[in-house]
């Protein structure tokens, strides 16, 4: 059975529609046949019952009284009426007041219990063949004759059955014709429904591989879903490609300067003859290389963040865990042991929907900025603050200048900051992380508290599971 369903899922739309219509036609056919046959039988019955009744009335009205006894000269017209069912046998019986047969077939028996009931129809048999009978009574109240004469007229069922079948047959003809029309219509509809899909597929395959612009959305409403999903996907692809492009150009731009500086120092070093100055130059080269290494680390983490922000599924993350992880990795203790770093975590979990590694990168950047440029002591922590979830790093310093602050957070805020160090890039990474998970980068300079860099998010409520 699952095999069957799997195959069903792969069936073409045309085949599905064909299957549906076939089912509909078969079921409709069965239903219509039954209904038509029932209707036909009813129609035939009422039509021929009228003939029977007409003939019976005809005969009843021909009864006369002569010498105190009912006599009849059977009207031929009655039999001609019955001859409208040309091949059916005719049975008739006239029953006198005493229940005695006056004329006709004794074989015709009134159904039991109907003896005293008046006129009507009943089903019976006539010489072994099923037949239908009509009973008409005529009352006589004469001096010489008082009583009821019953006229029973019956007929076999050939013509009725023929008529019922005829009606059924005609209904089936109509059904077959409409079935053909439906199949034809369905074929046309399916083709016209599938045409937009074909044109979309055609358009896609004709596309330039670098063309990630949205597809024309002038398609039927039902396919818009697919098209917008496709366009969303392409937009994501486009964004990621753009990020990559930016990353590459950023990297080139940011590496070129320190590498050129290194080269210049190296040249100076080889031209220098004074050993004291040589030592000085070598020291500078080391410092430069170290800062170049940090820059490389950060660019890699930015690449990581950009990549993850677009592609990784968000999950529930406790910001306290992030802060704890960063604190415990303890890079700062190795690089700058002279700075005092403390952890500041609340009791409540601070849950957001984000990606842990990206957040960690961002916080690491805050921390390294704080230990590099800020002043001890440095606090790292996470808290729910005014309905917002935030993770922050705070130091006792004054933070950057107002002019630099204005540019911070932007990817191009390299300016004076990045020239000497990688702080601008770090903030850019944090900004990108905030963006990617619907949060924002907040930089605060307080008179008492010092400089605070934070990422603020909407907390993930219990509902957003």
């Amino acid at each position, binding site marked *: 059975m699952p095999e069957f369903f799997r195959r069903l899922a792969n069936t073409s739309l045309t085949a599905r529609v064909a299957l549906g219509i076939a089912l509909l036609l078969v079921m409709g056919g069965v239903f219509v046949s039954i209904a038509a046959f029932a209707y036909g039988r009813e129609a035939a019955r009422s039509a021929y019952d009228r003939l029977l009744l007409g003939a019976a009335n005809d005969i009843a009205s021909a009864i006369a009284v002569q010498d105190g006894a009912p*006599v009849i000269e*059977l009207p*031929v017209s009655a*039999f001609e009426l019955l*001859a409208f069912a*040309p091949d059916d*046998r005719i049975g008739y019986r006239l029953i006198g007041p005493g229940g005695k047969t006056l004329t*006709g077939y004794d074989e015709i028996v009134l159904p039991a219990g109907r003896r005293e009931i008046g006129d009507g129809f009943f089903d019976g048999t006539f010489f072994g063949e099923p037949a239908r009978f009509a009973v008409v009574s005529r009352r006589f109240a004469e001096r010489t004759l008082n009583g009821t004469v019953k006229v029973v007229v019956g007929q076999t069922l050939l013509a009725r059955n023929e008529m019922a079948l005829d009606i059924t047959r005609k209904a089936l003809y109509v059904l077959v014709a409409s079935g053909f029309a439906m199949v034809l219509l369905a074929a046309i509809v399916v083709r016209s429904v599938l045409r937009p899909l074909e044109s979309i597929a055609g358009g896609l395959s004709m596309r330039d591989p670098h063309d990630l612009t949205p597809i024309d959305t002038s398609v039927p409403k039902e396919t818009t879903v697919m098209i917008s999903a496709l366009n969303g996907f392409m937009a994501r692809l486009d964004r990621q490609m753009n990020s990559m492009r930016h990353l590459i150009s950023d990297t080139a731009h940011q590496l070129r300067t320190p590498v050129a500086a290194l080269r210049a120092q190296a040249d100076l070093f080889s031209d220098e003859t004074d050993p004291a100055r040589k030592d000085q130059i070598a020291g500078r080269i080391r410092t430069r290389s170290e800062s170049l290494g940090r820059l490389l680390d950060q660019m890699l983490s930015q690449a990581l963040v950009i990549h993850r922000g677009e592609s990784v599924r968000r999950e529930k993350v406790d910001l306290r865990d992030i802060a704890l992880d960063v604190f415990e990795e303890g890079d700062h203790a190795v690089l700058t042991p002279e700075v005092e770093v403390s952890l500041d975590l609340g009791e409540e979990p601070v849950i957001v929907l984000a990606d842990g590694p990206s957040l960690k990168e961002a916080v690491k950047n805050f921390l390294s900025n704080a230990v590099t440029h800020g002043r001890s002591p440095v606090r790292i922590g996470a808290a729910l603050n005014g309905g917002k979830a935030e993770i922050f790093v705070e130091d006792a310093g004054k933070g950057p200048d107002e002019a630099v602050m204005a540019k911070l957070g932007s990817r191009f805020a390299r300016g004076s900051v990045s020239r000497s160090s990688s702080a601008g890039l770090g903030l850019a990474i944090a900004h990108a992380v905030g963006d990617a998970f619907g949060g924002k980068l907040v930089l605060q300079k307080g008179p008492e508290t010092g400089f605070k860099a934070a990422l603020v998010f909407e907390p993930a409520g219990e509902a957003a599971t």
Partner: protein
Amino acid sequence: MTGASILRALVAALAVAVPVSCFTSTGWGQELVEDFGAEDVDRVMVLRSTTDISVFGPVVDAFLQLRPDLKIRYEQWGSNALYRISRQDCRDASSGADVVISSGVHQMVQLVNERCASRYRSRLTEQLPEALRWRDELWGITREPAVIVYNRELVPEIDVPRTRFDLLDLLRPSGTPYAKRVATYDIEESGLGYLFAFADFQEASTFGALQESFGRTEAVSTCCSADIIRGVAEGRYLIAYNVLGSYAQAYRQQDDRIGIVLPSDYTLVLARALMIPIAARNEAAADAFLDFLLSSEGTFALRKALLISPLLEVEDGGEAETLSPTALRPIGLSPSLMVALDAMTRETFLRRWRATFPGP
């Protein structure tokens, strides 16, 4: 000459000499029997018919020429007796005849209505007009008009009645010479006479007037075809009404003292009915016989026996009357004929007839 054909010649001679058809009627039962076909054949088909053996014999012979493997036992019956025996056979489910042919078509319709006939369908039966078949169980195989016969010597040309109205006019004057000299069937005695009278009664209002005229002029009602025709030839009767045309024509071929008129207001045409009883032992042969009668050979044989009357054919020329086709009223095989056989209706009809012909 075989024994059978000697016998047949003898019977034929007898038929001319003795009014065979006078036995027809009151239940004498089987009148004559004759075997046709080679003696060493085992398969026998029993044919019961109201037609005189002398008339129908040649048709049977023609059939047997095509089917030498068959023997036919021909039983000649009166129509009422044939009806009774067939009905009895049907009720007892005993196999009497393989084929029944009767001029009492109303009786045949009744038998079919009572499920006494077996069904047969072939290309030839389907070619019959609707009026000449019923339920594929009863078929009309002959065409015989009911005619007026007159004595050519004693009835002046101007008096020859061409229509029933002419006949009424002849009988109207008080001192008419035709009083007591018009003959017709005694319908109580003759099933065929009753059928014709009943058909007349259905067909036109003239019949009442005619009946009244017959009564007033003391017309003679008697049995049977041959008797009446001979009476006309010999001058005992001047005019005979409603005589079976096939008999009249056969008689005129030997004796041209009679003239034949097909009434042009309307002429009843009788088609003898054939049925195959439900209990027939030799049904295949019966079917073949029916197909033969409807085939061109059979039609030709029937025509030679005058059972398909040449009088009905316009191009026949000679003395045959030309009739407009609408004047021909075939007595169709339909259940309406059952009315004729209804006991009470028949009683009423006969009572009226008796009032007209008080009897001898």
